[in-house]
């Protein structure tokens, strides 16, 4: 919590994006989270990704539930649409908004409590339906707002700040998302922006349900020895399968990659993802392989990060439902009410 507003001045040499905005223009209010919170780094990464993609802030809808993580949309994209919904209900509010207006970019921001406990069902169904969104879980393994009880993603055997050992099995949201058919699945770490920023940018460019699980240490209640979501633990056990760069426009891919190490993924929005392989055997287009890889490494205590699965030709909910392309708020009276002749014809088809 900080009492002064962040000064308006910015570095005189800040670069501007295509829209003439600096990354400062994508900020929101100053964070009221605890000093050092991992969530603030995720906020900074979202700001950076939107700046790099030259996204117009008014084209974004940021929707969240309840919890420390769900407070963060207040701290980024101060000029975007926002909806702070009921606990665990972000996915259905987002789904509804998306159905009404498919032209906006949807950012769903949630936490491990919001998505793996009270909103577990909501999370599952939004993924299953293929809602075109970027679903970010800021995962710290504890209930920070109620002083650090284990959440559903806390690993079995990990210790709370007071020394209690967790006896319940954890929910791995990445595994669930893979199983339920998410077409873009990634895991990252708030302490590694060089990995996280391009992942968010790529997820925004993906058409379909994108899910990113971001391990985000809770400085106040889950950054001690014995925790499996602390800075030290995640840094020691981080097993990144790849690194990526998001290429906007038609620029040729930079030549400083060794041949054979880069895989280019074309996205619907025209952007391309250049994937630099770290683990030579890992194939991010193999859903089944990804699930197996994840389980094997989890058993060894490793945290697999990177772009774990992507289907570049994914379909989204609107294609499944064959909905009208125009946002509902732009539909004119003549298309909403096409007249009795059309009604008669429709009725006749049902006879």
């Amino acid at each position, binding site marked *: *919590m*900080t*009492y*002064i*507003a*962040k*000064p*308006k*001045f*910015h*570095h*005189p*040499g*800040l*670069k501007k994006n295509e829209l003439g905005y600096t990354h*400062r223009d994508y900020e929101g209010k*100053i*964070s009221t989270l*605890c*000093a*050092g*919170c*991992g969530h*603030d*780094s995720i*906020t*900074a990464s979202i700001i950076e990704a939107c700046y790099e993609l030259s996204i117009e802030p008014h084209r974004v809808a940021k929707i969240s539930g309840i919890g420390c993580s769900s407070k963060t949309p207040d701290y980024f994209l101060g000029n975007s649409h926002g909806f702070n919904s009921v606990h665990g209900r972000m996915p259905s509010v987002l789904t509804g908004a998306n159905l009404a207006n498919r032209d906006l970019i949807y950012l769903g921001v949630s936490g491990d409590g919001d998505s793996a406990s009270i909103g577990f069902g909501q999370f599952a169904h939004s993924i299953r339906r293929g809602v075109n969104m970027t679903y970010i879980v800021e995962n710290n393994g504890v209930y920070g707002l109620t002083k650090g009880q284990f959440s559903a993603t806390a690993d079995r055997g990990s210790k709370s700040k007071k020394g209690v050992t967790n006896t319940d099995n954890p929910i791995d949201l990445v595994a669930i998302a893979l199983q339920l058919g998410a077409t873009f699945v990634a895991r990252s770490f*708030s*302490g590694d*922006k060089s990995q996280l920023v391009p992942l968010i940018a790529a997820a925004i460019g993906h058409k379909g349900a994108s899910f990113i699980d971001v391990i985000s*240490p809770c*400085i106040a209640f889950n*950054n001690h020895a014995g925790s499996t979501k602390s*800075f*030290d633990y995640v*840094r020691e056990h981080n097993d990144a399968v790849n690194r990526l760069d998001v290429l906007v426009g038609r620029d040729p891919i930079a030549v400083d990659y060794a041949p054979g190490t880069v895989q280019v993924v074309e996205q619907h929005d025209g952007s391309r993802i250049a994937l630099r392989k770290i683990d030579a055997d890992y194939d991010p287009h193999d859903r089944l392989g990804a699930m197996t890889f994840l389980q094997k490494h989890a058993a060894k205590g490793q945290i697999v990060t990177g772009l774990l699965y992507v289907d570049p030709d994914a379909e989204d909910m609107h294609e499944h439902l064959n909905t009208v392309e125009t946002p509902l708020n732009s539909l004119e009276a003549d298309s909403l009410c096409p007249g009795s002749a059309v009604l008669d014809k429709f009725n006749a088809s049902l006879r």
Partner: protein
Amino acid sequence: MKPTDIAAPDYFHKVVDCQWACPAHTPVPEYIRLIAQGRYSDAYMINWKSNVFPGILGRTCDRPCEPACRRGRVEETPVAICRLKRVAADFKDDIRQRLPRPAPKNGKRIALVGGGPASLTVARDLAPLGYHCTVFDADPEAGGMMRTQIPKFRLPNSVIDEETGYILGLGVEFKGGHRIDSMKSLLAEKYDAIFVGSGAPRGRELDIPGRKEAAGNIHIGIEWLANVSFGHVDKIGKRVIVLGGGNTAMDCCRTARRLGGEKVTVIVRSGFEEMKASPWEKEDAIHEDIPILNYMVPVAFKQVAGKLIGVTFQHVKAEYDAKGRRNLVPSGDPDQTIPCDDVLVAVGQENAFPWIEQDCGIEFDKWHMPKVDARTFVSTNPKVFFGGDAAFGPKNIIWAVAHGHDAALSIHKMLSGEDITERPLPDVQVSSQKMGIHEWSYDNDISVDKRYKVPHRDKVVALKDIRAEVELGYDVKLALGEAHRCLNCDVQTVFSTSLCIECDACVDICPMDCITFTDNGEESDLRQRLKAPSLHPDQDLYVSGDLKTGRVMVKDEDVCLHCGLCAERCPTGAWDMQKYLIEMTHAGSTCPTKSRSAA
């Protein structure tokens, strides 16, 4: 890069750009905070200790601090440091009780030649230590060029009287109207040390055709200003040309406007932008309807039977040779004669030491300047010291003060039997400003206000009275607004490598993108990899030791607002805001002569 050694006093001193740029190293942010708190007397005393003439400098200083001010790199204009100094002087209470008491004499006698800022600074430093200081000046009153050359509408006599009076009140003997015309006889009087602070008293001549014939209407700027100051001159012709582009030229033209000059024109050889005069002095002259014509070289004074009728100029343009040196070459336009009644020549000042005999043990260089050591200010005669304009040619008051402090330290060390080449380090105090979890003992909420204008007297009124001060100074409200613009650069961001957990909170919150966590490298390489571009390579990088991940923290000091948000957002206290108060060593400060390092 190696981890930054923040224990070296210069490192954080350099971050306080204004203080570092000030020749006397006045702790600027410290006194500005005191002004904001309404503690004007305390602010004044900090200045008095450091620069001796706060009221005078608050009106006339050349302000090397302001171009250096960090605020000028963050937005358009720096903090009005100079005019805030005047606020301290204007609103202080009676501070005489705070001045040092005249000390019992220690039996040592110092002669000071010239009663200007350099000599008075030496006397100020030495008199409280018991030295018997005798100041000689040809003029009846103390102040030197501050009294004779600066017009009263910029610097009233009352301010000079007050601040020279504080020094003379320390038991300094002042012998006014007493010109020293022989160094030899002064040496024969067996003073323990002699300080020469006689300034650069000779205005440079302009020897072009017609100079001798029209002498009655051609005046040397500084002599003419002195004559005006003493009331010997009280009028000038209606059409006046001022030759020269320095601050003396600006004083000449504005004085001429007040003595009957209706059409006063400043004409300079160089371009307007390259003029030596301070930008604000040029502005003030232009505001008083004085045009400044540039790229015109005077070639002849036109006269009829000894009466000046005009000055002929050749038009020139600037050309740059392969080495980037500028040459003024004729532009080809025909020469132009501008009619006038009087000319004021302000094309520079020179030193002159006709009174120093060759066999005094004082050596001169090929430019006829005394050979003076730039740190100790001693001449080739170990008992004779020089300072101010007399030492290294014309500069300005604040330099004279800085020289005076250093020379006084040398004299004190010499007469205490110490090695004068060993200069003690400045006194450095470091203290955390943390008051609570998110509370600091300084105002860290950054003001976005633009620079406040100093109110001026109405032009019509000002031009009628040569003694009416043009600048009225800030009132309390304006001063408070301006004081809030100070970024508190002396409240330093101090980083502890061992406490950092690399959570990135400081990187995310920093409004100026100053902080980068990255792999170490050479400085030139690191500067390429910062979060925001490094715009000023002369601004230091603050580099930590190796962190847990093998990276280092790099902070570009350039545009840090000292808002303390890095420290507020740091969960482990790896960042702290600590005030670095650096006080230069003056004669008789308690600092031991052995060099000591900062905390």
